[in-house]
């Protein structure tokens, strides 16, 4: 049976994106600019490669002892006065958040950017229950107004041009039509969001790092929106994947130095805020979410993917991502890292993603925690085919290829016939059925192969 999915596959979505070549160029250049900023920052630290190795090893330790660190974190967070919740999957996570919101009787609240809540589809879930979520990260707010998902984990609206943002703000925030001045639009967003912050009784934030030793969490933003939300609200709900743990406070320095440099080419994020205990009369809730992470932990060849600190460097460097756009990955986390995380969440829906790569390996080289992303892409391809998610046509062509290539005489004959056909009846291969020929010429078919030449001249 042919596997079918609820959405178009990466190749088709990327082909749609490529219909506007000028836009692809702009998208590619914008992200390449971020990659260059990252390079500059990395080169400013002679110890860069040591830092990556150290970070990778700290995370290796965390993943090997995750159970103990999580319990240590829980104990310390509770001692600090926080309430800790455990969610096995996205559904449980969403229900815990809904229950907390219902207890507070709120119909509207602010959220700072959190890829975990995107992964769990929290916003639409709450909307179904009559609760409005206001995303407060500027880029996130922009895509929210456009009713789109983020296209990048650090730069959620990187696919939008300032003119398009001007139009959105005109419609939703009442800015003058045609004004696309970034400074002006940012100021308008600031006023709009400030009102939301002041009125919100509950704030949700993500978590970048949770320190087991102290039970505290660190949230990194460039806009201070997590702080604004959490400090003004009476109830702070922090949602985190269980892999966000680091053992001790002293390890933070390693990750904070790597995160912003890898993400945006800044030495550090503008705000790296520590949340430890609720203020007097206030509440702090921490939701620890598994959602497939322990399953991935049990798969040895994919375990390293849980080291990810969500910097997005692999997306900025990925030549395929830059020319496909984030939405072509139809998953909360796009790009190379998304392509190795998504099949764990739903192998059937995301069976195409590990194939959306040339396996060039640039992603593994920029990764600040040294995840072997391109090797895992290769491994996922094997698993996906073994699990039966390859198309029948592909299976047939691979079986045929195997038949020809494992028999030297068949290979020689087939090659000779193929080249003869290409020379005498080029229309057989140079046609619309051949995806190679659509925008590329076929190589010229020589009369003799190297093997023929060798036999004639050397033996």
């Amino acid at each position, binding site marked *: 049976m042919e596997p079918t999915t609820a959405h178009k596959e990466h190749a088709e979505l990327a082909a749609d994106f*490529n219909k506007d070549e000028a836009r692809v160029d702009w998208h590619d250049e914008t992200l*390449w600019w971020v990659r260059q900023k990252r390079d500059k920052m990395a080169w400013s630290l002679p110890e860069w490669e040591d830092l990556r190795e150290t970070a990778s090893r700290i995370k290796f330790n965390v993943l090997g002892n995750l159970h103990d660190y999580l319990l240590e974190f829980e104990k310390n967070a509770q001692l600090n006065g926080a309430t800790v919740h455990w969610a096995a999957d996205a559904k449980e996570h969403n229900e815990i958040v809904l229950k907390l919101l219902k207890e507070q009787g709120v119909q509207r609240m602010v959220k700072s950017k959190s890829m975990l809540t995107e992964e769990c589809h929290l916003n639409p879930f709450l909307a179904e229950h009559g609760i409005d979520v206001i995303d407060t990260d500027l880029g996130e707010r922009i895509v929210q107004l456009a009713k789109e998902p983020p296209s990048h984990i650090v730069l959620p609206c990187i696919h939008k041009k300032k003119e398009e943002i001007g139009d959105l703000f005109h419609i939703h925030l009442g800015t003058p039509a045609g004004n696309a001045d970034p400074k002006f639009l940012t100021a308008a967003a600031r006023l709009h969001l400030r009102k939301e912050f002041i009125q919100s009784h509950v704030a949700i934030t993500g978590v970048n790092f949770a320190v087991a030793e102290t039970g505290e969490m660190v949230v990194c933003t460039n806009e201070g929106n997590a702080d604004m939300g959490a400090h003004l609200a009476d109830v702070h709900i922090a949602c985190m994947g269980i892999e966000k743990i680091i053992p001790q406070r002293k390890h933070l320095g390693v990750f904070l130095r790597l995160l912003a440099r890898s993400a945006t080419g800044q030495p550090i994020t503008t705000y790296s805020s520590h949340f430890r205990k609720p203020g007097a009369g206030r509440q702090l809730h921490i939701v620890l979410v598994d959602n497939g992470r322990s399953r991935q932990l049990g798969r040895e060849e994919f375990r390293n993917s849980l080291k990810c600190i969500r910097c997005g460097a692999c997306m900025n460097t990925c030549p395929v991502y830059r020319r496909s756009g984030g939405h072509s990955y139809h998953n909360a986390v796009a790009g190379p890292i998304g392509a190795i995380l998504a099949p764990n969440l739903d192998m059937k829906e995301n069976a195409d993603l590990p194939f959306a790569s040339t396996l060039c390996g640039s992603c593994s080289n920029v990764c600040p925690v040294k995840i072997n992303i391109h090797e895992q892409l290769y491994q996922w391809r*094997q698993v996906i085919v073994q699990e039966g998610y390859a198309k029948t046509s592909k299976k047939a062509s691979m079986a045929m290829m195997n038949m020809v290539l*494992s028999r030297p005489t068949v290979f020689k004959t087939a090659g000779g016939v193929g080249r003869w056909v290409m020379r005498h009846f080029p229309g057989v291969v140079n046609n619309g059925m051949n*995806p190679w020929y659509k*925008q590329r010429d076929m190589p010229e078919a020589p009369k003799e*192969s190297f093997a023929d030449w*060798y036999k004639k001249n050397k033996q």
Partner: protein
Amino acid sequence: MKVGLFIPCYIDQFYPQVGIATLSLLEKLGCEVVYPQGQTCCGQPMANSGFEHLTGGCNELFVKNFADFDYIVSPSGSCTLHIKDHLHVHDKEDAATHIRQHIYELSEFLTDVLQVKHLSARFPHKVGIHQSCHGQRGLHLSQMTELVAAPYSKPEQLLQMVEGLELIELTRKDECCGFGGTFCVFEEAVSVKMGKDRIADHEKHGAEYITGNDVSCLMHLEGILKRQQSKVKVLHIAEILNAAF
């Protein structure tokens, strides 16, 4: 020193001149080279498509053809890397291990094993190097721009021995060309866009020729260049190192 020449399937069929240049170059440098006639393909097209379980036949064939050489040399970084990483044969694991440890892409064989210091080649043209990813990042033929580490390049080191050759700088030194094996047909749109951008970088800096260590990438770029009716040509590095134009 007995060298087994591994000519990948598509080079055998479409680019025999690359095989001839490789053989001639190795012989000029004093190697005893044999081309085992029963060879076909390394199995990478199947493995990279998720069908590694179908590569048994290719693996057995490869071991049969190449087990008895001191070194195996190939004008393709990608196929060499595939063998290095994935060649296994259940009952011939010793032979497979010997091959994995003694297979070299041509330019690394020249710089690291033969330690070539000069070549009698002349090619008075402006040349850009397309660093194929598997050779560069997999076999470490040259330093990668993502890493904070001292630069080096084995292909560049060799091309600098060619009289009259002028290497051009590129804006994106090691960007992938988008070939990617079966990626080039299953993801045709992105593949071609990447190829076009790769070519534009070379053209912008005045390249007359694009060279590299993988014919596969060059075949993809050549296909686009011809469609664009560009004057820029592609040549495998073996053809330039063996050149006496």
